[in-house]
């Protein structure tokens, strides 16, 4: 269930989805990063991937719990939810994750995000102004127990990033990994 072609993602971003602060970061990345705004990189093409990294998500932690990538590298992540709860694999800065957690909390409060299930129909509900709770950011995968998905990401030349699960409580309990970018 590989999700989101780039075009669809761009369309989703333009349609001002409720979810996900990385929209701005993505823009910053395209402009070469720096300027005080976090550059987290951009979606990549699987064909151009330099390496493949498998990530297993358990309740509530990752294996591995940290990762080193080279600056500019394109990595194909194969992410499998081995737990019995819903988990996310999301690449971003600590600040972006913090902002995203508020959105995830809203998903819980609206019954979109259940402990072990995602109500993908309800996600499409119009929250007003054409906004929805669709979780379609290119830097993130939200998986039910047993699901597997792929995410291809081209990292910036430098930066301090984390991969994290922003399902309420999970990040705080330690479901977050360091992403070191080697120059």
């Amino acid at each position, binding site marked *: 269930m590989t999700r989101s072609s780039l075009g669809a993602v761009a369309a989703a971003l333009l349609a001002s989805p409720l979810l996900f602060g990385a929209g701005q970061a993505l823009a910053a990345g395209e402009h070469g990063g720096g300027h005080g705004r976090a550059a987290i990189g951009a979606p990549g093409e699987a064909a151009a991937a330099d390496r493949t990294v498998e990530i297993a998500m*358990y*309740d*509530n*932690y990752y294996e591995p719990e940290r990762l080193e990538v080279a600056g500019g590298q394109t990595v194909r992540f194969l992410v499998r939810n081995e737990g*019995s*709860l819903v988990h996310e694999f999301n690449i971003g800065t600590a600040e972006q994750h913090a902002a995203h957690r508020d959105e995830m909390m809203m998903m819980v409060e609206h019954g979109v995000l259940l*402990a072990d299930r995602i109500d993908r129909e309800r996600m499409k509900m119009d929250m007003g102004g054409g906004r929805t709770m669709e979780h379609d950011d290119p830097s993130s995968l939200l998986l039910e127990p047993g699901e597997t998905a792929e995410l291809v990401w081209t990292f910036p030349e430098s930066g301090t990033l984390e991969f994290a699960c922003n399902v*309420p*409580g*999970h990040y*705080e*309990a*330690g479901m977050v990994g360091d992403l070191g970018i080697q120059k």
Partner: protein
Amino acid sequence: MSGASGRGALGRPRRVGRGLCLAPLFAAVLGVLAPLPAGAAEYDLAIEPVTVERDGATRTVIGYNGQSPGPTLRFREGEEVTIRVTNRLQVSSSIHWHGIILPSGMDGVPGLSFDGIEPGETFTYRFPVTQSGTYWFHSHSEQQEQDGAYGSIVIEPEGREPFRYDRDYVVLLSDEHDHAGATILNNLKTMPDYYNRQQRTVGDFFADVSDRGLGATLAERAAWGEMRMMPTDITDVQDYRYLINGRDPGQNWTALFDAGERIRLRFINASAMTYFDLRIPGLQMTVVQADGNNVQPVPVDELRIAVSETFDVIVRPTEARAYTLFAETMARDGYARATLAPREGMTAEVPELREPPLLTMADMRLAHGDMGHGDMGHGETGEAGMGEADTGEADMGEAGMDHSTMTGEAAEGGMAGMDHAQMGHGAATGAAADPFYAPGSGLTPSAAGGGRFLSYADLKAQRPLYAERPAGREIEIRLTGNMERYIWSINGIKYEDAEPIRLQYGERVRFKFVNETMMTHPMHLHGMWSILDAGSGKWNPVKHVVSVAPGTTVYTETEVDAPGRWAFHCHLLYHMASGMFREVRVEGGPQSAALPTSPARGE
């Protein structure tokens, strides 16, 4: 009484025969014996008088191995522990391992599990450790728990924890009194409001009249009078000194950290009578465990811990500064305080106590509203009176109760006739009110900083312990009392006059707790888990104590998987001692309940 004679005789708890070293060695050398458990730990504990310092003076309390609280016992899931307990007091004693699943003969309740431990005697406890998490132990004899006889238990899991932390601290809360527990009980029996220093005054009366009119004020006063209760009856006992890990607020127990670290705090409420509202201004706490069972993590700003509950939280201070851990009593008559800091000696601001809550008419809903006469204590309906032995107990065997109401149990029924406008007293009336408090209750908590306050409804099992299945029958447990005579009871009958509650091994029962009193009761079932119906289906949390607020009905379910005789009681010490207690007798199942056998588990 001298602490010196006992102290040091046994020293700190000794761990001998750790499976990894001694036991297998012997087994290998001897080449005999049955296969040993994965590990085995041995402890020696002496129950003895110990001295503690308070306000420059020394007091003698009851402790273990020279200290109160006793030493933290560290077990590992899967091992068998042997604990030799020697009583160096002048009176009989016991140790109950609170929340630990074990054979009934090892449960440490005199009269049910065993005969108690007489002065000079050593009793050897031996049981397999089949669980992990944060627990505690305490005396189950007389009122020794009030006098310092408690300590913590930390059980390391077989696998990894579903959360991460860099530091790990036990934070044991307790209430210490200048009066011995036995004296307090006697005073309460003689004069139930002996310790209530927050009685309403004539001034309050005129303030109420001007706020709400004479008629409403008089009617309400009359209702309270009939209850033999007062709106300030949040707690029965005051003048406590509140402690964290045996230190009073001035002694300021301190936990060290480096900025950015995750700290696991294992909160244990070892108080005799006191509920605490816990917060750490400047830090969110992520609740990861309740009563030793992991829960899906919930970030909160504040939480209420009932007597005998435990909650484990993860905090992550990012600044290298001091943070105050503030544990305000539910009655707001005092606080326990500790500090998290990068270095010893650092302190942070200690918040002011908030205004004491006042009970409202909502808190007497069941006692007053449902009965219609507000005559609790007069025994007219047999609800709360003495000697009405025909109520309640008889219908225990009835099946076919309503199992269908899965959400908002605590707020169900009976509210229609109540006029909320008359409740006043600034009761919490938030839209997202906690379903485990009566609507309009004066006890509904709210976070000091306006953030999130943990509710039982937030607790979801991290991994369900038992498969879901319907309960075979429902047993009603009405929590009743007569404040005027300081008699607390279940279904109107106190312990001495009651028959045991008989359960059949292998069944699943549903308990319906109906709190008909004005007090909050932390109900504790020994030996088996209480699955709290929090409206979350298979994710309902598994606990060993369930707090039932006034005017509410709360349901739990229990898989009856442990044969033998078990205690079931309110964990408020003086309520337990006054009759809010039952024996639960599990019939059938494996024989020789006293032998260490692993309890059967679902799944």
